[in-house]
C-alpha cells in the first residue's frame, strides 16, 4: 500500500502536461511525470518517494508513436518494452528491453520510464548510446531535440519540468550487426552482473555497458582500444577495461575481480564475433 496521497492527472497533449507540471509545482504539489509507474509504485510502497501529484504521459499521442518516419525510427516514451520487442523494429533495443525485469513487467515498463529510472541499470539506454539516438524532450523551454550523448551522462539530465517525449534512431543503425549479452549471478531474472550492448558501425565496434561501473556508459576511449586491430584481442580488451570511467563495483552480485573476469571473457568473444 502506498501511504502517501497524491493527485493523478492524465493529459492528452504535450502542452497540457508541461503547463500542468508548472502549475502543480507552483502550488507545492511536487509533481512527477509518470510512465509505466512500476518504480514509482514500488518506491512509494516503501515510503522512499513522496509526491503530491503524478502526471501520466501515456495518453499523449506523441508519446505513443512507434513507427518509421522518414529516415528515423520514432519511439514514444510511453511505449512499453514489450511493444518494442514485439515490433522488433530495432532488434538490439528489443533484446536489451527483453532482459529488463521479467516479461510481465515489460508489459508495463515504458521506454521513457526505464531511461529516467533511479535504479542504476537503465539497460534500455545502452542501444541508444550506441546509435547516437536523438532524445525529444518537452518542458518550459518548449520541445527540444538533444543528442543522447549530450543529455545522458551517468543518468538522464533533464531540466526541471521536462519529460522525454520520444526517442529517434537513424534507420541505418537498425540493421547493423550487434551483440547483446547480460550475465546475472544465478537466475535469468535478476539484476545484471554485467550487461554489454555492442554493434559494428562503419567497421568500428561500439560498446556500451551497464553495471560495469555504478552507472551505464559508452566510452570512446575504451572503443578506441577495442578497435586497435593491430594488437591481439586479449590485450585490447585488457587495455579497454583499464579505461573504464570508474572502478568495477564490488557488491553482493560479485567481487570486482570476478566482474572483471566475466567482462574480459564477454568482451573478447564480442570483439571476435563482430570482427568476423
Amino acid at each position, binding site marked *: *500500500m*502506498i501511504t*502517501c*496521497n*497524491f*493527485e*493523478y*492527472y*492524465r*493529459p*492528452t497533449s504535450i502542452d*497540457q502536461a508541461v503547463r*500542468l507540471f508548472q502549475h502543480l509545482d507552483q502550488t507545492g504539489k511536487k509533481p512527477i511525470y509518470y510512465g509505466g*509507474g*512500476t518504480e514509482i*509504485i*514500488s518506491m*512509494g*510502497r516503501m515510503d522512499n518517494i513522496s509526491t503530491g501529484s*503524478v502526471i*501520466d504521459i501515456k*495518453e499523449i499521442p506523441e508519446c505513443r508513436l512507434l513507427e518509421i518516419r522518414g529516415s528515423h525510427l520514432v519511439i514514444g516514451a510511453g511505449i512499453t518494452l*514489450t511493444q518494442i520487442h514485439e515490433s522488433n523494429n530495432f532488434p538490439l533495443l528489443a533484446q536489451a528491453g*527483453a532482459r529488463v*525485469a*521479467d*516479461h*510481465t*513487467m515489460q*508489459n*508495463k515498463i515504458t521506454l521513457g520510464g526505464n531511461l529516467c529510472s533511479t535504479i542504476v541499470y537503465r539497460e534500455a539506454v545502452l542501444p541508444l548510446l550506441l546509435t547516437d539516438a536523438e532524445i525529444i524532450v518537452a518542458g518550459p523551454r518548449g520541445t527540444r531535440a538533444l543528442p543522447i550523448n549530450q543529455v545522458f551522462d551517468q543518468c538522464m539530465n533533464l531540466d526541471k519540468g521536462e519529460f522525454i517525449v520520444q526517442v529517434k534512431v537513424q534507420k541505418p543503425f537498425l540493421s547493423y550487426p550487434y551483440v547483446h549479452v547480460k550475465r546475472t549471478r544465478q537466475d*535469468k*531474472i535478476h539484476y545484471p552482473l554485467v550487461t554489454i550492448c555492442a554493434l559494428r558501425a562503419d567497421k568500428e565496434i561500439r560498446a556500451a555497458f551497464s553495471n560495469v561501473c555504478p552507472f551505464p556508459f559508452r566510452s570512446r576511449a575504451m572503443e578506441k582500444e577495442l578497435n586497435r586491430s593491430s594488437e591481439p584481442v586479449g590485450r585490447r580488451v585488457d587495455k579497454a577495461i583499464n579505461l573504464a570511467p570508474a572502478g568495477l563495483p564490488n557488491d553482493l552480485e560479485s567481487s570486482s575481480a570476478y566482474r572483471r573476469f566475466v567482462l574480459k571473457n564477454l568482451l573478447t568473444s564480442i570483439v571476435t564475433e563482430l570482427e568476423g
Partner: protein
Amino acid sequence: MYQFLNEGLIEIKVNGELRKALVRPADTLLFALRERLGLTGAKPGCENGDCGACTVLVDGWPIKSCLMLAVEAVGHEVTTVEGLDNVPIQKAFVEKFAFQCGYCTPGFIMNCQGLIDIHPDASDETMHEWLQANICRCTSYQEITEAIKSVLHSDQAQE
C-alpha cells in the same frame, strides 16, 4: 484531460462489467480488485512486482496488479481469474496437477491465458520467457509447463 484528485469512485471494466470502486489515486489495482470489488483471485504476494501472484489481464496483456494504480485501469478492460469460465488452461492445470498449495495459481493462469490469446503458437522459448514472470514456491514448474504446452499445442495434437 482525465484527472482523479482525491478518494472517490472510479469506474473500471472488470470481467466484462463496469464496476464502481471507492479508491484513492494512490491505491493499486490489486487493492481495488480485492478490497473494493471482492475479487480475491488476484493474490497479494511480494507486492513488489517480483512474484506474479497478482497477475491479471489488462486489455489482454498480463499485468502485475500490485504495480498498477487502480485509476490507470479507467478506460481499459481488466480480466481476473474470476472472469475465466473453465477455459482450456484451467482444465489443463487440473489435469496436469499443475499446483500444490495453489496460491500462485491464479497469477500463473492469467499469464498463461495472456500468452495463449496473444501467441497461440508460441515457441518453447517464448513460453519460458513469459512464465519466468511468476514464482511457484512449491516448485510445480514442470507440471505448469506441461499444462500450458498441452493448450498451446492442442491444435497440432488434434491434427
